[in-house]
């Protein structure tokens, strides 16, 4: 069932690939604007790099969130999902995984390349990659709750960012902190472990909370 939903959402994303590419280009452009704006001061750039990449990743994942359930809600597919004989949380988890594969994983893969503009050493780039690999699923998981809560509301997009961005703060702090601590000469292990713990916590709770929110939204 999980595989069915993931394959379906990936197929839909492939057929609507311009939507996905816009998000990724947004991430690339926002991150690239900072070295241009701040100027070629290597020390400053190295200092702001983790924060910039992470904030851009938060905003990029925000952009794709309102698509998570909106299309299925409008054409009635969501009703069918609610009435399917499988647990709704499992279906939701499938949609979240697919969302991460198209809008979270590519960010993590591109981040090391973009990080070079900030003169980060190779080890810091690797840590940036791992931090994003652990952190972007958290963004999709928390974002799904927000997307379900604001489903069908007018101006839901703005409300969604107000609701979700504060919840992203822990991921931002530990994610950016991992790279910063490495640059400062401290082991990033603590930050990465906390990020992993956060991923497990949201992974276990977010699909259920989202499922409940969807049932309420569909009443």
């Amino acid at each position: 069932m999980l595989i069915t939903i993931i394959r379906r959402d990936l197929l839909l994303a492939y057929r609507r690939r311009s939507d996905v590419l816009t998000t990724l280009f947004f991430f690339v452009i926002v991150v690239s604007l900072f070295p241009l704006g701040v100027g070629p001061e290597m020390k400053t750039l190295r200092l702001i790099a983790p924060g910039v990449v992470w904030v851009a990743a938060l905003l990029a994942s925000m952009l794709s969130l309102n698509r998570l359930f909106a299309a299925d809600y409008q054409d009635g597919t969501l009703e069918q999902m609610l009435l399917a004989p499988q647990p709704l949380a499992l279906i939701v988890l499938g949609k979240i995984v697919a969302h991460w594969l198209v809008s979270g994983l590519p960010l993590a893969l591109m981040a090391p390349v973009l990080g070079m503009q900030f003169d980060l050493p190779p080890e810091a780039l690797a840590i940036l990659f791992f931090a994003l690999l652990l952190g972007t699923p958290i963004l999709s998981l928390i974002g799904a709750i927000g997307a379900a809560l604001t489903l069908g509301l007018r101006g839901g997009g703005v409300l969604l960012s107000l609701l979700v961005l504060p919840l992203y703060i822990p991921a931002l702090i530990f994610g950016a902190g991992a790279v910063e601590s490495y640059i400062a000469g401290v082991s990033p292990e603590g930050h990465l472990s906390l990020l992993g713990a956060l991923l497990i916590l949201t992974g276990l709770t977010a699909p259920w909370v989202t499922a409940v929110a969807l049932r309420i939204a569909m009443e």
Partner: protein
Amino acid sequence: MAQEAVSSPASTPNDPADRPNTMLEAAHLTCQRGERTLFTNLSFTLGAGELLQVAGPNGSGKTSLLKLLCGLSPPVAGEIHWQGAPARGEDFRRHLFYLGHQHAVKEELSALENLHISTDLAGEPLTDEEALDALERMGLAGREHLPAKVLSQGQKRRVALARLLVSKAPLWILDEPLTALDVGAVDLIQSRLAEHLAHQGMVVVTTHQALHVPGVTPRRIDLE
């Protein structure tokens, strides 16, 4: 606005003892949408092989009633039972086929992909041959691989209704299944309904068109 709706079976006897086994039972349902009460104290039962037609003008709560029956929204008051147990949960949903008036057809996917995904979701996966056969019987031969967005409104409806041809669920809840269909498709759906009822299936349907299911006299609920 609240009106007590009375089920008035035209030919089936009113005495429950003479009726086939009650499978679906709704007792004293009240439905509110916002401030408006759509109906109160609505009770009816449905047994194997019975067709229930919900009638009433626009806005009288037909779709709301169907959503209550599916469990998509809870009633303000009253209860719905399926085989003696409250009608909710995965076990009930396994017995249910619901077709809303949004037909859940993805524009970006082909007719075949749409049918495969919706049947997979319902836990009744089809082989390619079965799916192609259902689409062909629905009059979509040659259009199986076209994206649904190039199909006409009626053809999209046919894609959604292809699930009727393959559904094994005993309880069908259909919201305006005949909209946008031509005469041939209407006949096909009606004969499929007759076949389903003959196999001890149950159908709850809303429609503004006259429904002629061969060999079956529908019971009616009139909402006002």
